[in-house]
């Protein structure tokens, strides 16, 4: 994608050069450093959509509303109240009157249209730069009507990508473990919801204990630990068919499963007679390969995006710290050296950070560290924070936080730089979140 983009740009530049003489660079006399600016969200107008069938009237409002809510939730955008918009959806059908939109100081404008397409919907949008009049992006999505929110999220992703230069993250889901009931009788259910909390549903009924749901890289499968018949097992569920299969058998108690980047294998921990070591399971053949053999507790293994290195957690140096090793289990080296008890490491899909949780100085933190050990720093601090998981663009994390005063556990998102803490709505207590990849 990068190369394509570059090629296109180069062509464009050549075209520009041919048609328009370059600016007289040699004579630029005045050079000005702009060292200030406005640190504020970008004012964007997301107009209600046009529609051509009366029954679409509601969707024509709801879709842009969901898109705008997504964008605002990133903290990078501020929607301009549609009541201030100078053009109606129908007037916007053609090229917008940018002069009018400039008057309300909209810097970007999203306009769109929804129509019936067979039994489903065709939703299209355009993103404009109001001050240059440039058409920045435009796509059409064809989908079943029941999935209209996905169209809204996809639009938000397209806008986000074009205006921030980062990857999208709105058309995604979050799996987690929902908890309810008194502490002595917690009911735990596997739950799945859209990133914004919509379309919430439970995947299990709460009769069994469940832990650590993890998405496959295609977003269509989930692997997790569940107690059945008094024993923990590892199960994989196809989210589309609802079919579940049991993985194993394992030489001991298996837990902490996580898919490799191509979805063909799992890394997991197997405890035999009290000692935990790391294994790799080939999902097609069922072959199990042992990766560590150490008397210490090794757990929470996870690959880097290239499946060449594995990060894990071990107390081999006394307290739990993070370690790296090669894919085959060789080359073990310690990654973190700060005080505290580290846990639940996870590698960013971009490869640039490893997030973890750490207990230090009486507080729980979510922290991040570079894969070479640099920049190790906490980005949260609270009574209890745990289980970080990256959004597919690697810029945002979801994690679980316990509030000792309200006695609740909720999911929060936060930027890798520690900015933009936000709570995700869940109907019950929530722990152990995992963020899906972008949906297909």
């Amino acid at each position, binding site marked *: 994608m*990068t190369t394509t983009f*570059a090629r*296109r*740009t180069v062509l*464009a*530049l050549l*075209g*520009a050069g041919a048609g*328009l003489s370059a600016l*007289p*660079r040699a*004579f*630029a*006399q*005045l*050079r*000005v450093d*702009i*060292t*200030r*600016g*406005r640190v504020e969200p970008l004012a964007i107008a997301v107009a209600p959509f046009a529609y051509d*069938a009366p*029954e679409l009237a509601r969707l024509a409002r709801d879709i842009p509303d969901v898109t705008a809510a997504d964008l605002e939730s990133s903290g*990078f955008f501020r929607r301009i109240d549609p009541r201030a918009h100078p053009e109606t959806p129908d007037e916007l059908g*053609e*090229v917008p009157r940018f*002069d009018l939109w400039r*008057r309300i100081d909209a810097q970007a404008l999203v306009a769109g*249209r929804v129509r*019936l*397409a*067979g*039994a489903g919907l*065709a939703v299209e949008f*355009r993103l404009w730069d109001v*001050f*240059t009049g*440039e*058409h920045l992006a*435009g*796509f*059409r999505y*064809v*989908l079943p*009507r029941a*999935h209209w929110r996905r169209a809204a999220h996809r639009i938000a992703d397209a806008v986000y*990508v074009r205006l*921030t*230069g*980062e990857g999208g993250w709105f058309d995604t889901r979050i799996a987690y473990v929902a908890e*309810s009931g008194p502490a002595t*009788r917690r009911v735990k259910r596997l739950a799945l919801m859209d990133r914004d909390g919509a379309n919430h549903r439970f*995947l299990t009924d709460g*009769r069994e204990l469940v832990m650590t749901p993890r998405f496959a890289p295609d977003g269509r499968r989930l692997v997790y630990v569940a107690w059945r018949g008094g024993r923990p097992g590892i199960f994989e569920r196809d*989210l*589309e068919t609802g079919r579940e299969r049991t993985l194993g058998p394992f030489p001991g108690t298996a837990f902490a499963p996580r898919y490799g980047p191509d979805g063909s294998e799992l890394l997991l921990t197997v405890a035999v007679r009290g000692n935990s070591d790391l294994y790799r399971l080939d999902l097609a053949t069922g072959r199990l390969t042992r990766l560590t053999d150490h008397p210490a507790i090794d757990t929470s293994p996870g690959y880097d995006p290239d499946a060449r290195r594995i990060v894990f957690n071990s107390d081999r140096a006394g307290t739990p710290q993070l370690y790296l090793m090669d894919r085959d289990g060789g080359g073990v080296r310690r990654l973190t050296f700060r005080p505290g008890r580290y846990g639940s490491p996870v590698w960013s899909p971009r490869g640039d950070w490893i997030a973890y949780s750490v207990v230090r100085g009486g507080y729980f933190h979510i922290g991040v560290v570079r894969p070479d050990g640099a920049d190790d720093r906490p980005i949260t601090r609270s009574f209890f924070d745990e289980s970080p998981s990256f959004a597919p663009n690697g810029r945002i994390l979801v994690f679980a936080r316990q509030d000792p005063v309200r006695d609740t556990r909720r999911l929060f998102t936060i930027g*890798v730089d520690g900015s933009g803490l936000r709570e995700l709505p869940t109907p019950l207590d929530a722990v152990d979140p995992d963020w899906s990849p*972008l949906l*297909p």
Partner: protein
Amino acid sequence: MRRALAVSALLHLAALALLARLGFTPAPPSPPLVVELVAAVPEVEPEAPPADPVATAPRPPREEAAPPPAPPADETAAAEPPPDPSPPATPPPAESPPPIPEAEPPPPPVSTPTARTPAAAAPTPEAAPAPPPPRPHTAPAVPRRLAALRPAPRPRAAARATVRSPSPPRPRPVRVAEAVRTAPDGVRADVQAEDSFETLLRSVERLERRERAEERRAGRGRDREAGRPRTAPLEAVGARRPAPVELARLQRLVEDQVYRCWTIPLAARGIRGLRVLVRFELTPDGRVRAAEIVDRARYGKDPVFRIVAESAIRAVRRCAPLRLPRESYAAWRTIEMNFDLERALSG
């Protein structure tokens, strides 16, 4: 105890059902979306025909009823899109799982897409007619400063051509109107642009010719290409180099105006040492005639750099016309602005 647990679970379930109308539906499958590129100028008209299908499609399958069953067969669901007349052409770009990025690459092929893309073919003719209308309106400029922006549609068009070409032309947004003003291929835009601010340029040119005549030293007067008015050589300017004091004053004037209009792309936070140098050519009344990213290579391959560069250009356009002393136009006709993201964020 196990029973108690089950009871508790049931109670919770019941409560939930009431509370959130949520059930344990086996995760409703999400069929892959069909994604198509949309040309910049909505061919609302051409699509009108598909509108008819609306009439034909009136079957009210939309009620959630239909979708539920759909869940199981995602693949099929995906196949469903065919109802849309254009799917065949679009599939290629659409299929791309990653939303936009992938979809974009295919742009080239897009040209073929059914009714929508034909736009590409008709660019010039149709385009012209559409855009013009807006401009005229703008003419009745509002007294406000911002309004002033509009009146000068011509210069902007030209400027846009230059600036724009780098970024937008890239994708397929070959749509009609845009095509013209965006100058995807540079050439057409060139012509157009020339037409548009011909008048303005002419006056500038006249002014420069006079200066040139006066200065006329080395034989550097050759105008570039035919479009000489646009590039009016600035040699003349060089002759009257402004005093450092004056330069400092101009710098302050420019920065004071521009920074207020620069919305720093928050997504670029945390990127160290990011600076974007943009060269602007201004008209005597302070509007942007052209803008050019100096580091084109990076602009082409670093998305975040590109975003910051675009925000920089947007800032200056948003502030235009810049209020600068007319008598020293020669000194600020071309300005290099160094947008220093790191300092801006740390300050």
